[in-house]
Every structure is written in structure tokens, then in C-alpha cells.
């Protein structure tokens, strides 16, 4: 029996010890009319060899050439060491570190992770992870509403240039609690948050403002001005950031005069494979003063009875297993293994390494942008400075262009028309450090052929 070690005679011995004659008797408390004896529709067992063949043939269907899609999930080099380390059974097959003494590996690692994320974001503290970037933003919003005692509106300013999937997710997650999401339009020329739209809200009761840096279009916001504006009005600020950018760009902890209150985002760029969208991990960091409103697990350093330093889950009184319906969040299982990958990634690259990844990705995107916009029919959509991703406007339907590029083994980017019909035929492209000069030229050549 695959994965079940019992031999026939052991099973019989065990049944005898229990005092039943048949294994099905163990289910005798289930009312007869609820019993089933089969699982029709589930295929027969396969050996590992057969499953391997099956999965290889499925995976082979999905190999798709050079990827220039970004849009919240980025192809970066993942150091080989990461795979070997996170495949170690001790990390891979442990549960949540409930027994601290038997989980010091995972606990210390999370403490190191928290430290790294605090450093990267410029904040004081970080939690141990949330599900992903989008749900992390929802949690940040809940947190901001709990924190902003001066506001009673439960109103959040959510700019339209925040990742549309994040906005959808936030909507699903926060709406049942009667939280009000107010769209803030972006400036059609720059792609940045429209300051006038904010000014129009002057005097209204607002709990928090969300700022994405870079925003979904890859465009850099004037974060200092935005934070100053919000802070002057007792509006909390939530930053949504790409962690790779933080070794290069000013961290949210330094935006404006005071820095933001909460930082969240998608951790995937830090050593996690694209893998169809998950498992990734959401990160969340905040100021020290806010730590007790932070959702999710937090690891703290303490000492054992001999005074030896050690690590343990802490501030658990915020969490659902103790606080139940009054908890800061319902999250329990989070994304520990991906945090393990990210912690190793950050250790291997260090600040300078991540900065180089960011800079190189940026340079590649700029080069690609220049190559592509040199083509007749391809224009830049926005004028502002970007970070490692940008929007192009085409004079042909993007969907068809992408199909044609795909035939050349190029995944050309994301078609923005379903999300922002007002932008016309808009294409979001990204070239990370994984792309070579030849790759960029291959893209540009393929594009030239389509547009000539």
C-alpha cells in the first residue's frame, strides 16, 4: 500500500488489540446513511514512475521561451543553494514552530528574516509572512483602520495605479467589514497618482492612503510629497513596494518627513520561482508602535531557563488561536518555506547584490524600452521615471501582437486593455537581470517584424 507501512498481520494484530474484527468497524459511529465505500471518479493509483511521466508531459506543454512579463511577479536568478537548502527535510517537513525548543532552526531563521525585512523597508518591525502581496495589502488596510483612532470613516484611498489584482483582492477581503475603498485616478500623462484628486478630498475623514512604489505601470511616485500630504491630515500611509527595488530606491521608512506607517508587498522577487503565481509570500512591516496591531506570526528572541538565548513565537495574544473572533487576523498557516528561501536569498546577495539585481533589471528594461519605442507604432505611454517596468502604447491590438511574439518564443508582456481600457492598446513590459543583450534584441527584432 503506497505510503502505508502496515502489513496484513500487523493490521490484524492492531485490530485485535482494539477489539474489532474489521477496519471498517472503526467507522461505526458514522451513521449508516452517510457511509460510502468508494470514490468513483478518482483515477487508479499510479507508481511514481508513471506520475513522473505524466507530470513531465504536462510541464513540457508550459515551456514558453523568454519571459518579459512582470506585473507583480518577476523572473530573477535564484541561487542554486536555495533549492538544496529549502529541500532539507528539517525545513520542508516541519510544521509551524509550536514547540519552540524543537524548532529553533525555523524560529531563528524567521527572526533573521524579520530583521532583514525591517532593514529593507526601513521600518522597525516585520511579521513572519502573510499569504501574498495582495492579501498582505488587505491585512495592512485592516491594521490601518484599527490603528487610526482619529478616523471613524473606515475609508481607504486606493489609487487606480495599484496592481488591479491587488485591488480586486482587497475588495473581496475588506468589503464584508464595511470598509470603504475610494479610487484615486492616475494622471493620464505621467501614470502617477493625480494630486488634484487627493486635494479634492481635503477635509474628509480618511483612514489611510495606499501608495504603490513603483506603481503598477512601473512609474515612480513622488512619495515624499504624498506622504507629507497624508501625514499632515492624520491619514495613515500604507506603502506597497517591490522588495528588490528597496536596495536601490528610498525605503518607505524614509518617505516624507516621518516615513510611512505600514509597508507591505509581494516577497516573490526574493528567491521564489514564478511557479504560476504561488506559493509566494506577503511581507508586512511597520513602526514599533504598531506592532501589537500587526497580523500574523512574530518571532521574538528570549532566553531559556539557563539564560541561553533562544527564539519563540511571541505576541500570540493578537492571534486567532487565543483571541479568536477578536484576533488581528484569521491567518494561521502562512508561507514559511518561502520566507526560508527569501532569507537565504537576502543573505547570499546582501544589500549590494540586491541593488545590482535592481539596477541591472532597471537598465535592461530601459534598454528594451528604447529599442522598442524606436519602432514606428510603439510609443511610451507615460513620461515619468520608472523602475524596471514600463507601459508601451501600440498602434495594433496588443492581444494579437502578443500572440505573434509567442510564436517567436517571446512572452512579450501583459496586455493592459482588459484592466485599463482608457489606456488604449497598452502593453506592460519588464526585462529583469536574467535577460541578455541578445534577448532584448531578439524581442526588438520580433517586434520590428510585426510592426513593419
Amino acid at each position, binding site marked *: 500500500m503506497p505510503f502505508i507501512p502496515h502489513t496484513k498481520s500487523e493490521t490484524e494484530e492492531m485490530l485485535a488489540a482494539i477489539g474489532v474484527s474489521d477496519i471498517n468497524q472503526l467507522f461505526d459511529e458514522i451513521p449508516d446513511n452517510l457511509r460510502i465505500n468508494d470514490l468513483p471518479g478518482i483515477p487508479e493509483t499510479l507508481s511514481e514512475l508513471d506520475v513522473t511521466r505524466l507530470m513531465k508531459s504536462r510541464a513540457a506543454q508550459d515551456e514558453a521561451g523568454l519571459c518579459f512579463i512582470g506585473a507583480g511577479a518577476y523572473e530573477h536568478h535564484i541561487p542554486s543553494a536555495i533549492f538544496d537548502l529549502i529541500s532539507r527535510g528539517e525545513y520542508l517537513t516541519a510544521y509551524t514552530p509550536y514547540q519552540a*525548543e524543537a524548532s529553533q532552526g525555523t524560529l531563528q531563521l524567521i527572526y533573521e528574516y524579520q530583521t532583514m525585512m525591517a532593514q529593507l523597508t526601513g521600518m522597525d518591525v516585520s511579521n513572519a509572512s502573510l499569504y501574498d502581496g495582495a492579501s498582505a495589502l488587505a491585512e495592512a488596510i485592516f491594521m490601518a483602520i484599527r490603528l487610526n483612532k482619529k478616523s471613524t470613516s473606515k475609508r481607504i484611498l486606493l489609487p487606480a495605479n495599484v496592481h488591479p489584482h491587488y485591488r480586486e483582492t482587497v475588495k473581496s477581503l475588506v468589503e464584508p467589514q464595511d470598509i470603504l475603498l475610494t479610487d484615486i485616478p492616475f494622471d493620464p500623462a505621467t501614470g502617477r497618482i493625480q494630486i488634484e484628486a487627493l486635494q479634492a478630498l481635503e477635509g474628509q475623514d480618511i483612514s489611510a492612503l495606499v501608495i504603490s512604489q513603483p506603481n503598477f505601470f512601473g512609474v515612480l511616485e513622488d512619495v515624499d510629497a504624498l506622504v507629507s500630504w497624508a501625514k499632515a491630515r492624520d491619514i495613515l500611509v500604507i506603502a506597497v513596494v517591490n522588495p528588490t527595488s528597496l*536596495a536601490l530606491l528610498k525605503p518607505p521608512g524614509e518617505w516624507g518627513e516621518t516615513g510611512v506607517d505600514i509597508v507591505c508587498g509581494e516577497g516573490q522577487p526574493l528567491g521564489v520561482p514564478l511557479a504560476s503565481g504561488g506559493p509566494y509570500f506577503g511581507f508586512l512591516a511597520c513602526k514599533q508602535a504598531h506592532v501589537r496591531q500587526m497580523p500574523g506570526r512574530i518571532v521574538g528572541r528570549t532566553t531559556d531557563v539557563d539564560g541561553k538565548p533562544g527564539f519563540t513565537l511571541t505576541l500570540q495574544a493578537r492571534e486567532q488561536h487565543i483571541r479568536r473572533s477578536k484576533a488581528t487576523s*484569521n491567518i494561521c498557516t502562512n508561507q514559511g518555506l518561502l520566507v526560508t528561501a527569501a532569507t537565504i536569498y537576502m543573505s547570499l546577495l546582501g544589500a549590494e547584490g540586491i541593488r545590482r539585481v535592481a539596477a541591472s533589471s532597471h537598465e535592461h528594461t530601459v534598454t528594451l524600452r528604447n529599442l522598442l519605442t524606436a519602432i514606428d507604432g510603439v510609443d511610451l505611454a507615460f513620461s515619468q521615471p520608472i523602475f524596471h517596468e514600463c507601459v508601451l502604447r501600440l498602434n495594433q491590438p496588443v492581444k494579437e501582437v502578443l500572440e505573434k511574439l509567442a510564436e517567436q518564443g517571446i512572452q512579450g508582456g501583459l496586455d493592459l486593455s482588459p484592466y485599463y481600457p482608457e489606456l488604449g492598446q497598452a502593453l506592460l513590459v519588464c526585462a529583469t537581470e536574467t535577460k541578455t543583450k541578445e534577448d532584448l534584441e531578439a524581442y526588438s527584432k520580433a517586434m520590428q517584424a510585426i510592426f513593419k
Partner: protein
Amino acid sequence: MLIFEHSTPDRRAFAQAPQHSADTSDIPDNLLRKVPPMLPEVSELQVVRHYTRLSRKNFSIDTHFYPLGSCTMKYNPRAHRLAWLPGFADRHPLALPRFSQGIMSCLFELQEYLSKITGMAAVSLSPMAGAQGEFAGVAAIRAYHASRGDTERTEFLVPDAAHGTNPASAAMCGYTVKEIPTNAEGDVDIEALKAVIGPKTAGIMLTNPSTLGVFERRIKEIAQLIHGVGGLLYYDGANLNAIVGKTRPGDMGFDVIHMNLHKTFSTPHGGGGPGAGPIAVSERLKPFLPVPLVIKKGEAYEWLLSKDASQSIGRLSAFMGNAGVLLRAYIYIRLLGREGLIRVAEYATLNANYLMKALEKSGFKPAFPARRATHEFILSFQSTAKELGITAMDFAKRMLDEGIHAPTVYFPLLVPECMLIEPTETESKEQMDIFVQVMQRILEEAKQSPEKLHEAPVTLPVRRLDDVKAVKQLDVVYNDSL
């Protein structure tokens, strides 16, 4: 030693980043970072050695018996590594569907399998863990009521034995939570239930078998009661391992269920996650399922997204939930197949009942001795605590010294000094017998030299940790050398 303590300025794992620093002069200076973050500055060897050594401080399924109740810590077949095949690992979540038919076919089939296993009409795979599944399920119930203009239902019922995520999820959906007591036999107190249900009742969240390790026998009656007042039933599928192939939540009358794929479907939990918490729903909740779903049109698989699902509660993640975990669960189901899945519940239950019987014989006190154990069971250490001053926690810590991960302690909250033991089907009879011997040995020690239990653990990297200090002198980031 922390990784930061291995750090030296200007050191790095040089092979891992671009060799030359690229041009970023087009980014305005006021948007650039001036002081780099203080990340470790260490060599590749230092990183590998540090995190290899650190890992060795963990207990895990691969190294230790890990009968952590409610968590289903069974063997994770290593075939799960097939989810790392380049076609899967390198696929961008927004790749065109024509380069996604491989994974989409797996997800589509997984939806089908899960709906068959649960006896439900349809499945959404996107929730990223049990708790998010709970949110999704309760939100779907909320959307259902709302769609019927049934807006006065403000209360959700949850038994006192429930996992903390249940009340928290109901609250996240805006409901007031009402606790339902449990009777002496471990079942829901039906009289108490009758007393609270009514027009305000939006629904109830139940785990069956419950977190008490017993099967809720009057489930049909409960379903009738709830449905009778217009409420719906939510099934917390954390304990699905106890019943796969033996009974189906759909038949019990449930309207929605989440499954923890990292439990019943054996995807590795990675020291805290990832998991996946797909939900399955009855016909009436189908329109409210969260997106994306995978549908089949002719021979091609397509995504069903918000724009084509007007009543959907919407999106719960940026992309497709924990897609890689879903793949691993798919692999697991294909490996076990129909016969294999049925055996899961059988042998999980066999191990639990065998162990409960043997421990009872050895003088331990099952919380519900008259009941059949399901895939797990509870011991109460109330008498040891009173008579010997030895708590369930003392016992648990001593077990660590014996090389066994302690079972869940102090959950569920309503059984005093409790220990929730879940051996799972992948552990052998020998392992059960060793567990019993260890328990007997510790019990003997508790009588002869109780200090050994109070002092435990003594063989691990640290001894008992000061949790109070951890809260009072909060130290959650390293600052010393930074």
C-alpha cells in the same frame, strides 16, 4: 549565532549577482536610497553552512515522529518535487493560456477530484490556506444571503471546541460569533444550539470529526436545524484525513467546505507554510465561488475570472493562490489513486484507535474513552496535574527529549490539560509501540523523579524558553551590530 554575526563589510556571495553595477542615472536622486540596508555580508559557504546547521535544530517529519494533533503530519511523498519541473516552476502566472494548458489541466482535474471526494458540486482552488478557505466559504454564505435580500442574518455559530480560525474568519466576514457548548460525550450540545438559532443565524461552522477527535453523530439533525432557520453549514475540513472515502461532507448536509491540502493531501508544510485551502460548495453556493476557476471549453482549458463571474466573492490573491501547492496535492492524489485515498482514513483511524487503547491500558486518560477515536484522540492530564503536579506541557517537553515531537497541547481549549494525538496513517505499528513505551517511561518518571519533567527538555539546542520575557522585553529584530 545569527547570520548577521558572521557578517563583515564588503563580503558577499559574488557569483549570485550581476558582476557589474548597472546604470540607474535616469532615476531622480530624491527617489534613491542613500544608506544601504544592513543585510548580512557573508560568503556563499557561510550562508550554506549557517542555514544547514540551523536546519538541524528543527524536528520534522523526515527526522522525527511528529504526532501533532489537528495538523496531519504524515509522510510527504518526495514525488512532490515534480512541481519544480521547469515548465511549472518557470511559468509566469500571467502567461498566455496556450502556454498554460499543462498546469491548467492539472488544476481542472484537481477541482474535479476534490468535488468528488467531498460530495460537493464545485470547487475553487484559490484560497491559500485553511483560514483563507474559511473566509471564502463564509463570505460565499454571506453573498448567498445577500443575493436573496436576506440581510438580517448577523450571527455565525461556532462550537467552543472549534479552531481559532473559525471564529476569526466569521468575524472577518462581519459576523457576530456565537459559541455553542459541547456535551460530555464530545458532541455539539443540541439543546444549546436550538436555543440560539433563529432568523439572525447566517450559518454554523463545524469540524466533523471535531477537534475533539470524535465524529459528530447527530450531524444530519444539526443540518436540518440550521437549514430549518435558513442558515447554511460550513465544514472545516482540517480533519478530512479521518473520513476520505468513508463519508462525504456533501452528504451530511454541508453547503461549503475548505480542505487543508497541506494536511490531508500531504503537501509539505515548510515550518509554517505554504498550505492551500480550496473550498468546495453545494449547488446553491456555486455562483459565489472565488475566482480564478479553471473551466474547459472543448479541448482547451480557460480561466474563469471576475468579469465572467458577476456573483463571485472575487479574487483572494494576486494570481492563482498557492498554485505550486495545488500541483503537489494533484501529484499526491494521482499517486494514491482511488484505492489509496480510501486507505488513508482507514489506517489513520487504525493507528489512532490502537494508540488510544494502548495508552488507556497504560494508565492514561482519554478524554472520551467511550467514543471511537477518529484519526486523532485526546488525552487529559488533569489528574497528573493535580496528583503529581505534572502538566500536559511538562509531558510534552519531556517527549522532545525522547526524540518525539510533542502532540498538540492545550488545544482544543475546552478540555483541561489536554493533549491531541494524531499519529497519521504513514507511521508504523513499531512507531506506535515505541510511542507507548516512551509515554510509560515518562509516566514512571513523573512519579519517581518529577523534576526531570519540569526541567525538560535537556537534550535540545535550548531548554524551556521564557515566553513572558519574549513579550515583555520584545526583541523581534536584531539591532546589536546593525
